[in-house]
């Protein structure tokens, strides 16, 4: 505490007394104001736009049209509902595999072993890699004519596939890309959870002669459940909002047949490719409702698990 001795007690100015008394808001205020201004104003404005026919230029005149956009969007089976379907399908599939593989790899890495450092570096690399670059990397690897994947499956006698270029194969291929990049995230979170578990229950179970599966089923997984739901929540939010790799892989509109167009991509396209601000705001408000709804359900689940 040498610094305290050097500075010592000194008479405080009125300003210093005031600052110290209100330090709570002095410290937290600027950050909260920053976020508040950048969120609340845009959200309110986006909501307002969703009630108007704004389009063309952001400065153009627009008319209040009530809930007409919502009626249009919710009855749109060409773009909106397929985009909802793709968003839900994409999120469901990638979450399933990321949680499954993430848990599997975390269990493999749990107990110390030789070469641990190398493995940990390897799983960190996809995670920190720039998503757009990852998208480009997979575009080359999955390229139907020059990519190594078709050559590799050819060895096993499987005919070449169109992958990202195919109308029905594009979405599963982007799911694979997402799973490759984000499984390590789940692994790291679950590994942190596993490492924080105490050894005692495991020793007791071993003494009682429990099988590996029984230990996992009745001890490891229940103790890990709260962390598991945190990982599910964090990945779920980001998976719903997936943008970078989809745009990098298929470009505007999620490809010429909108093969990979999720709600986020659809909203972006309406805003910045078609300048349909009213409709895009409606889509984005509905998207936001879906996200908040999912979070609400999951946090309820997490509280139940923590209890």
């Amino acid at each position: 505490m040498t610094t305290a001795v050097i500075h010592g007690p000194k008479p405080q100015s009125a300003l210093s007394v005031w600052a110290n008394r209100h330090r709570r808001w002095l410290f937290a205020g600027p950050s909260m104001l920053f976020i508040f201004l950048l969120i609340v104003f845009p959200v309110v404005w986006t909501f307002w736009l969703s009630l108007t026919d704004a389009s063309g230029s952001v400065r153009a005149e627009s008319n209040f049209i009530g809930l007409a956009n919502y009626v249009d969007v919710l009855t749109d089976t060409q773009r909106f509902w397929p985009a909802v379907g793709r968003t839900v399908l994409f999120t469901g599939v990638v979450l399933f595999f990321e949680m499954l593989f993430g848990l599997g790899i975390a269990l493999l890495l749990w107990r110390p072993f030789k070469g641990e450092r190398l493995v940990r570096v390897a799983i960190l690399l996809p995670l920190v890699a720039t998503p757009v670059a990852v998208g480009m990397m997979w575009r080359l690897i999955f390229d139907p004519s020059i990519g190594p994947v078709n050559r590799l499956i050819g060895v096993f006698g499987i005919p070449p596939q169109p992958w990202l270029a195919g109308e029905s194969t594009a979405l599963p291929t982007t799911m694979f890309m997402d799973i490759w990049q984000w499984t390590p995230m789940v692994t790291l979170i679950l590994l942190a959870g596993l490492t924080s578990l105490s050894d005692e229950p495991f020793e007791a179970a071993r003494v009682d002669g429990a099988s590996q599966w029984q230990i996992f089923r009745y001890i490891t997984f229940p103790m890990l459940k709260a962390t598991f739901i945190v990982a599910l929540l964090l990945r779920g939010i980001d998976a719903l909002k997936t943008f970078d790799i989809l745009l990098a892989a298929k470009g505007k509109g999620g490809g010429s047949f909108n093969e990979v167009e999720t709600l986020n991509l659809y909203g972006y396209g309406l805003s910045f490719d078609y300048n349909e601000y009213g409709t895009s705001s409606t889509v984005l408000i509905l998207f936001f409702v879906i996200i908040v709804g999912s979070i609400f359900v999951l946090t309820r689940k997490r509280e139940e698990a923590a209890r």
Partner: protein
Amino acid sequence: MITTTRYKVFRVVALVLIVAAFIVPIVWMVLAAFKTNVDIYDASKTLIFTPTFENFDKVFGQANFGQYIINSGLIAVAATGLSLVLGVPAAFAMSRFVMNKSALVVLMARVIPGVSLLVPWYYLFSQLRLVGSYWVLILSHMFVALPLIVYIMMGFFDGLPVELEESGQVDGLTPIGSFWYLMLPLSTPGIATAGILSFIFSWNNFMFALVLSGSATKTLPVAIYDFIGYASIDWGALMAASTIVTLPIMIMSLFAQKYIVSGLTAGATKG
């Protein structure tokens, strides 16, 4: 735990496969960056080929990537620095005074889809004549960095004993003084974690710069994206560009592995 030979063999095989699955695609990208377009097409030159720097020449020469590296670096450093200045004291107050509702406001930023903010931002910032400037990019990237920093630092401050701060006040420091002279020096590992992670998130961010950057302030992810969209893809140059963006972050993560992992998993294991 499990000690049977069969499990040990299984574990080694599984780990080798996992490492290969994560590393091989990246190696493929880096190798392609050093190949001519003819060699990329040639299956017999998968591993053995004459490396060329032609792709990198193209990327730096014609595509002006030198400038984009500077843009990305400048924006990431500024956004991280400013977010630390705002976020570290905020996280301290929110941790000390258990301001959970305030913390929730900041965390909202992680939940909201960025696209839904972009139209109003674009309008607002174009009125202020800021679209295409460094400032608008720094501000929008701070929107990514600040919540991350607050979140990580709150967890870190939660772990420091309150008595420490009080001991400073016993020695005659004001509360702000003990934050400055005691808590801040103690939280350097936390600040390093938050800073490194927020740099990476800003460096990798694509969506905000896609809409808000101008041709002179373009960041690397946008520059890569602009590479495609022409009739035929120059694979060698595209892979060189992707390598240039990814490699600095990957090398950084080799040295800062511990910090990155603790940042990514911050708060995940609390009840």
